[in-house]
């Protein structure tokens, strides 16, 4: 299909009204790109048709390309650093949550009913719990527990004479706080 000048001029109004099929629209644009007389007629009919032409891409100089690419590299490096930092606290929170869960579980076990509590000789449950917290220490490096290559070992030592359980908590060094 090819359009003559009158064919094209008859399509200015439907072009601006978005009423042309894509094929017709393409022919109008191609014709306008090569026909100065029709371009003038088009602008007289509807000045917005002045812009009915594929605009060429911007010239981006080699220096600008290099500058933008450097900026993108720097921006990506910054985002990578932000992601690493954002990852840290999440892991720490996970470690804290895990620690809290262990402690709560330990307390729940130690303060719940059962044979051990039934045999506890003195006081309410809270009294039995307090010594466990005060005895919550990082295990000695030279003891049976302590620092290993990838983990730190903590121990809840209930103290002599207590019937509270002894709890050993092994924490991956990368998650330790």
């Amino acid at each position, binding site marked *: 299909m090819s359009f003559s000048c009158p064919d094209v001029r008859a399509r200015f109004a439907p072009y601006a009204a*978005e009423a042309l099929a894509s094929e017709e629209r393409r022919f109008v644009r191609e014709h306008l790109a090569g026909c100065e007389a029709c371009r003038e007629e088009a*602008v007289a009919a*509807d000045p*917005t048709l*002045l812009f009915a032409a594929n605009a060429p891409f911007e010239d981006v100089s080699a220096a600008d*390309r290099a500058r933008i*690419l450097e900026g*993108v590299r720097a921006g990506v490096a910054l985002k990578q650093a932000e992601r690493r930092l954002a990852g840290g606290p999440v892991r720490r929170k996970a470690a804290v949550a895990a620690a809290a869960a262990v402690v709560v579980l330990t307390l729940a076990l130690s303060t719940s009913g059962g044979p051990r509590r039934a045999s506890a000789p003195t006081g309410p449950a809270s009294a039995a719990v307090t010594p466990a917290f005060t005895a919550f220490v990082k295990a000695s490096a030279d003891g049976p527990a302590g620092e290993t290559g990838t983990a730190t070992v903590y121990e809840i030592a209930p103290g002599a004479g207590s019937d509270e359980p002894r709890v050993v908590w092994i924490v991956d060094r990368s998650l330790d706080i």
Partner: protein
Amino acid sequence: MELVYSESRRRIEVEALPDRELAVAARGGDSAAFETLVTRKLPAVVSVARRVLGDAEDARDVAQMVFVRVWEELHRYDETYSFNTWLYRIATNLAIDFLRSARSRERAHGATLHLVRMREELSASQTTRGAEDRELNRVFEEVSSRLSGKQKAAFLLREMEDKDTREIAEILNCGESTVRNHLFNARRILRREIARLYPNLASHGPRSKA
């Protein structure tokens, strides 16, 4: 030495890849693929940003932001769809956001330095085809200053980039009927602004600003 050779060979390999494959490779951590994508798409992104913003320096800043955003969002890219459409969506959104903030700044300062600069550039018209294209862009920048960001983006994607309404709807993340509304309103405002700023344009061409 082997590493340098491998990197340069990889760059040559990735340059032959289509956009989608580059995007997938970049998502997998292939920095050569990502940089090839940046280099390949830079003129298109700068052009869209330039037409939305009307300022070459701002367009370069936005282009940089666009590619950092592309890197951040690559995991969301669905390679069953056109990479160009996805890229244009990011580019137009960031350019529109930038335009809004720039307009806010202009309003806040009561200054239109940008328009003054454009008028100065317009007075230095030249006769080459490239200069005519640039002049047309400048006319558009001036008469489109009353368009909203979405109206402006829809119009330039339709007329200057020759995108169809379906693709514009995907880029602007709205319905096709909304795109048609944007186009209708953009033409109405542009006609009014052209009549106001370039009353003799229709009879004498784009250089006849009153």
